[in-house]
């Protein structure tokens, strides 16, 4: 789920950080620059792991800041393919389900990655898995806020650096900006044994536990 990315960067340290040691200043600048941002083809940056090398510092004419070449390792969120993760359902639509991990929520389970025999319930606006046993069909609803387990099948990075001004004017660009291109999207699937709502696969245990607890209470 988390990986280390090794990055080299020329860090600019503004004069008001000269009071600290170089190390502290570099750590602060790197975290300010990268934390909670997506780096193209790397992943979502979380926090600095360590600094592997620190070059000489330079001062350029016309700039009071010092520049230091730093190689460092950063903790990034980037699950590998086929990794199994657990999250919470954030929203549902006919296109699929959006899953949130709390710190990251651009995870989508598309309609074609649902369990076989699933359908979207228009009135409840949730996805339903029609699980068939020998004699009857169980309708298993996937409500918002439920814990869901999924497998990563694809990831997609988008370059969101601003290009030139848009040629189309007015409302179009405004709405586009509102939707926003997602810099990093993950696609998951729940079409496998053990995937889907966590409660589907632990239900029997939970019931047992509840029974046990009730028994305990009775004894008390």
């Amino acid at each position, binding site marked *: 789920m988390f990986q*280390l990315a*090794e990055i080299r960067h020329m860090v600019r340290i503004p004069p008001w950080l000269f009071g600290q040691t170089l190390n502290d200043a570099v750590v602060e600048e790197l975290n300010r620059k990268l934390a*909670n941002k997506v780096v193209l083809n790397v992943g979502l940056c979380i926090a600095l792991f360590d600094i592997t090398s620190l070059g000489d510092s330079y001062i350029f004419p016309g700039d009071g800041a010092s520049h230091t070449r730093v190689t460092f390792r950063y903790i990034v969120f980037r699950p590998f393919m086929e990794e199994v993760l657990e999250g919470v359902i954030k929203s549902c639509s006919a296109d699929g389900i959006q899953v949130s991990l*709390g710190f990251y929520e651009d995870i989508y389970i598309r309609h074609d990655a649902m369990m076989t025999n699933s359908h979207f319930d228009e009135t409840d606006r949730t996805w339903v898995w029609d699980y068939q046993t020998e004699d009857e069909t169980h309708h298993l609803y996937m409500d918002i806020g439920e814990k869901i387990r999924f497998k990563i099948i694809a990831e997609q990075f988008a370059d969101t650096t601003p290009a030139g001004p848009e040629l189309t004017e007015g409302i179009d660009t405004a709405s586009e900006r509102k939707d926003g291109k997602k810099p990093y999207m993950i696609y998951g699937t729940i079409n496998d044994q*053990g995937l889907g709502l966590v409660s589907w696969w632990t239900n029997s245990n939970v019931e047992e536990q509840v029974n046990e607890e009730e028994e305990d209470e009775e004894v008390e």
Partner: protein
Amino acid sequence: MEVVNSKGAVLSNWEVFGLLKDLCQQDVKGRRNLAKTQTHLANIAFDTLKYLEKTPCRNQSPEVIHGFLESVKDFKLTKAEKLQLINLRPTTPVEMQLIIEDSEERLTEEQVDQLIALVEHHLPDNPQHLVNGKPNQ
């Protein structure tokens, strides 16, 4: 900025959890207020911690993980599989099959049961169970 190696090492949830916890504790000691000077870092660290606190990694330690890895040496699992065993702490055969690829061919039923027993023995119980007042059985 140039990326030297985008896929360096893979970290377990516990490693990230420990690191972020240290980071937030440093903040409490009051060297500088993280929330004021570095809002992005404070936000992501807080949210990630909140997520990780709900996962089994919360109760793990280097000794626990080391002990577990030693005990599953003979199962010939891949690195990714072992990582997920530690991160997810599966306790049912269905979950095992999900995490271990081609588990039907690679492992016998007894081995799967053995693996579950090892997971339960070495890795501390899920925090949810602790809340219910049921620590390790």
